[in-house]
């Protein structure tokens, strides 16, 4: 964990105009992508777009088709049908231009362990067409941004997992891509390194970079994304902002209350409160369902004060993406 304390946010010096060509309406547009591996359909006609300057997450359980979709957009796999545009460039017809606009952070560490951090960045920078003074300057900037200036000559194979992750991300940002694609970058790492990566993503987005992020962690998608596409069995089953998704399935907040007195009587009183759609008693507590918990909770206290019981504890469970996924598929995200 020695590296965790020295990690910094990725503070880049990019010019927004360079990152986002004015011609492209969307950073990424995915149109009816389909990909099958023999009899297994990994991606079944998905469509979505990533707006310029937003963090867009593909959320779904393992095997949902997220990585296949990312692989097609990154140019690793050729779709059976459909197309994707990256900054207006078709991945099929203008693949080189599309790739120049992309920075891909693979799920696994994809670095040369026998080379130093600096040598790795120099090599990957060259692959993106950087050279000479510009390459050297960008490598210095990225080493500084990921807090590895002092370890730049150390072989990557000797680095901790968190340090490798940082080099892995830095290698994708050297050429100032307009779009960063991150494929489950927090899988299998410690909480501190995970926190750093999430902060990196936010910082990149703050600088105006578009981020296409895949995860099966609901919390990450909720924290990072302006919009989310939920994938299951190769299909996008829902897409929108978090609130839109929650509203889409009509989920309500569940308010669990413990009262001094008779729970059944409290449930009867609260059933008539405006905004409450349902009350039940279970295990000595009252469960209240309401669309707008912020408005309803004060009314519940008011009703209790006017009656002969008092509220001793309140637990509000807002609807989240987990419940959305559950509603849409009948399964939990981590099933």
């Amino acid at each position, binding site marked *: 964990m020695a590296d965790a304390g020295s990690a910094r946010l990725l503070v880049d010096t990019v010019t927004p105009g360079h990152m986002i060509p004015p011609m492209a309406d969307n950073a990424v547009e995915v149109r009816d992508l389909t990909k099958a591996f023999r009899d297994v359909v990994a991606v079944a006609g998905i469509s979505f777009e990533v707006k310029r300057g937003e963090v867009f997450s593909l959320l779904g359980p393992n095997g949902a088709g997220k990585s296949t979709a990312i692989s097609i957009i*990154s*140019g*690793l796999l*050729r779709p059976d049908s459909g197309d994707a545009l990256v900054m207006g460039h078709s991945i099929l017809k203008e693949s*080189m*231009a599309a*790739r*120049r606009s*992309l920075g*891909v952070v*693979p799920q*696994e*560490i*994809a*670095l*040369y*362990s*026998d*080379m130093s951090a600096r040598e790795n960045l120099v*090599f*990957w920078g*060259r*692959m*993106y*067409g950087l050279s000479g003074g510009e390459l050297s300057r960008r490598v210095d900037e990225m080493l500084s941004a990921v807090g590895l200036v002092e370890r730049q000559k150390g072989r990557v194979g000797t680095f901790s997992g968190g340090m490798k992750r940082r080099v892995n991300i830095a*290698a994708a940002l050297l050429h100032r891509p307009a779009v960063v694609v991150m494929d489950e970058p927090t899988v299998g790492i410690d909480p501190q390194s995970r926190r750093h990566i999430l902060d990196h993503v936010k910082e990149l987005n703050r600088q105006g970079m578009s981020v296409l992020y895949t995860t099966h962690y609901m919390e990450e998608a909720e924290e990072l994304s302006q919009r989310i596409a939920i994938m299951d069995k190769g299909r996008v089953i829902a897409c929108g902002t978090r609130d839109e998704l929650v509203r889409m399935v009509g989920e309500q907040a569940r308010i669990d209350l413990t009262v001094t007195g008779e729970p059944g009587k409290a449930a009867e009183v609260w059933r008539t409160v405006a905004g409450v759609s349902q009350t039940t008693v279970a295990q000595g507590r009252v469960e209240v369902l309401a669309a707008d918990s912020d408005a309803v909770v004060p009314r519940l206290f008011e009703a209790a004060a006017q009656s002969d019981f008092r509220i001793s504890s309140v637990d509000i469970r807002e609807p989240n993406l987990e419940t959305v996924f559950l509603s849409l598929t009948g399964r939990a995200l981590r099933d």
Partner: protein
Amino acid sequence: MTEVYIAGKDLRGSLRSRFFIGVAVLVPLLVMSLFFFAFGGGVKGTGAGPGLAPIRTVVVDEDTGSLQLGRIAVSTLIGPQLRQIVSGTEVLDTIQARHALETKQADAAVVIPAGFSAAVTDSAGQAEVMLLADPVKTIGPAVVQAVLQRLLDAFSGSRILLNTYRGAAVSAGTTPDSNVVAGLMEQYQAAAQSGAAPLTVRTPEAGEDVAAMLRRMMSSIFAGLMIFFAFYTGAYTALSIVREHEDGTLARLFTTPVGRSRILGGKMLSVVATVVVQATVLVVVSTLLFGLKWGQAGSVLLALVGTVAATSGFGVMLASFIKTTRQGGPVLGGGLSVAGMLGGLFTQAVPNMPAAFNRISLVLPQGWVIRGWNLAIAGRAAGDMLLPVGVMLAWGVVCFVVGSMVFRRRFA
């Protein structure tokens, strides 16, 4: 230019790898060193004397007949004619000879049995000379055996002469004159001892000394070693494509704005560069350390070019059929060893190999590469190298194309 960066990255990785340096450079040099010392470590001689240390030989002459033909054998083995090869000493009996072998004072012992002269001159006689050898030594006793064989062949010739005389006498109705027999043998003995001996030590080519012959043989052996390890290096380096695939770096390369053909081209360029470095280092170091002579500069250059093409192409093709690096070890080790054996890389110094071996080697790139190097080592001009080098290049191109197609299909 991107291809050069990829190749440079791979080459640098190879040169940093202790495993690679060990297998590609140190092991062939170590094996060559063992050969070098087995041959006495002296092939750096320039013609003044042989590089091979003289074979210590003790000789026992138990032949007490009147003709004393055994003395011819003794004088041949301990005489000045063979002093560059055989350091002969006469001892009294077989016991002393065995003792000399057991105490490592001699590498071989020759026993001329009692009645040797009689057996030679008797038309029905059996002349048996015994050769005792230190079981650890192989080359020295084999040389002494060859010398003795030549000597006994000469004695057989003289016996044919005597039999002819005897036959003529019988046909003429007379009895062979024992004095004539003795006279013929005395003349033979005199002729042998005066320098017209039945045994003549000749170097393979006029004007070439033993050191040069040994040097050429060593060069040929080392060429076989070098070629074997060059094929291994080619395949091992090409296997880095599979290694990068497993490590995820190949997939990452495919996400960069560099075409797949250029990426695979860079990987193949790295194979070529690595084999060039390896072969050049081995040729230069073996020349400096062991005094090996590889031939005329133009011929060596052509052989080098052909070797690089054939080994790189073959390596790429072989690696393209390997799915995982775990498969790589046995496939490379086993496949290349068999191909090397059938291609004749390890049997260069073995005379009179079965013709089938030669025919098989014609359908393997290894066979043509070693042919090319042997021509260069023999001092042949560049013009004589065109056929084997052309075949090497053809092998290289065909294998490259096959390997590239397989890789492209796999990573398409």
